[in-house]
């Protein structure tokens, strides 16, 4: 869920940008490391970014009737890992702003923080956690994608609540207000995205094993 251009007060916009930058820089460093070993990986990284963008441009059937789209956060985090996703996500969000006027430049930092950092890290953590507890692939993917989505939406609500505390009840009231408004659209969407991601990962792990091994999603077969 993108916070639109100009919505956040300048101090907040700047603070969230400052919060997002270290993650993106760290991601860029790890990308630079990958590229040093294998310069051709540039193509693969660009492919992942473009794929993520196109994914976010697809429309999801939405309960509220408005057009919604998958964030792809969970899928991206599970496939490419959260540190690469910070950069890929930032690129996608920048392109969405410049190409579609969706989201914004001043709110880029806040959006990167919720969608390219918190969402993917939560998704990744949930995925690893459930897999570590020997949960099935489908269960792990579903909760990773769904909770990744929900984490993004909660983060966005926090960002807005911090910027616009309730006149009477302050931050707590505002957070309650915004989480409950957005819940109507975001909870069903998170479930749908969870289901969709399971379908996709299932199809991929059946038919694109070699690619997934290449992306280190599935550890290579032991000798």
């Amino acid at each position, binding site marked *: 869920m993108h916070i*639109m251009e100009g919505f956040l007060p300048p101090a907040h916009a700047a603070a969230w940008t400052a919060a997002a930058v270290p993650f993106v820089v760290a991601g860029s460093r790890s990308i630079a490391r990958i590229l040093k070993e294998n310069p051709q990986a540039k193509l693969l990284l660009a492919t992942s970014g473009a794929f993520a963008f196109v994914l976010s441009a697809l429309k999801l059937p939405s309960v509220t009737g408005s057009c919604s789209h998958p964030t792809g956060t969970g899928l991206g985090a599970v496939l490419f890992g959260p540190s690469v996703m910070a950069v890929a996500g930032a690129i996608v969000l920048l392109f969405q702003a410049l190409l579609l006027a969706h989201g914004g430049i001043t709110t880029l930092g806040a959006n990167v923080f919720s969608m390219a950092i918190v969402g993917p890290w939560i998704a990744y953590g949930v995925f690893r956690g459930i897999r570590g507890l020997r949960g099935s692939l489908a269960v792990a993917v579903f909760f990773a994608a769904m909770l990744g989505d929900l984490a993004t939406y909660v983060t966005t609500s926090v960002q807005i609540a911090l910027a616009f505390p309730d*006149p009477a009840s302050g931050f707590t009231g505002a957070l309650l207000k915004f989480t409950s408004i957005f819940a109507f659209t975001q909870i069903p969407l998170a479930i749908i995205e969870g289901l969709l991601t399971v379908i996709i990962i299932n199809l991929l792990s059946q038919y694109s094993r070699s690619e997934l091994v290449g992306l280190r999603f599935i550890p290579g077969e032991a000798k």
Partner: protein
Amino acid sequence: MLTSDGFAWTNRWHRHHPAEKGLLAGGMLVLAVTLPAPTTAPIIIAVMFVTTVLGAGIPAVTWLRLMALPSGFLITSVPFLALSLNFSSGLQVVFSPQGLEVALSVLLRSLAAVSCLTFLTLTTPTIDLVPLLRRVGVPPAVVEIMLLTYRLVFVFLERAATGHQAQIARQGYVGLRNTLRSLGLLVTSLFQRSLERSRRMEIGLTARGFQGELRVLAPKRSISRARVASAAGLLLGVAAAGLVLDATVR
């Protein structure tokens, strides 16, 4: 494919140096978020409408459509800024005049900021702005990845659109379950073809001497001093008008 991108490449100002347009849009954006919204924002919206529609020659309908895009976000969030939750005696929802003032000012500020972004989206190909990122310290490798990403976005979008059409022809996307299944199949095939494309592109680029670096030369474009001066003048004018008006109102 993407309407806004089509205009960015063909509008009256598409050959102008991106820095000129970046200065105008970026400057106005700064004014929009920093100056008092109730007085400055309407001026900015008017100025950006005039430059986009009369200056760059974008149809007014297109401008309006793009401006209306974030309205969903505004509708679901702005009214609630004017409502207040009070826990002191149970849960009470009350109207807050103070909140209404904030809500109106956020509404205006956002619309003014969006009008700046809309100008940039409709008049400047995104890819022209990316090289400017190198100046603010983004590593060259990341900039190269962005250049490539931009190109691939369109290749994949075209594939996604055609695939979607083909699925519709076979009665995909009828009902919720079918829609999820269709979408899952589309995304999966898109993923596979994307990886395939990246492998084939590596061959194609290797044939052109690719050894890891994606260096290109942009067509030569010069910055027009006259246009930079008028953009700066416009920014100063808007800032002054906004501030003066604000002082008068108070």
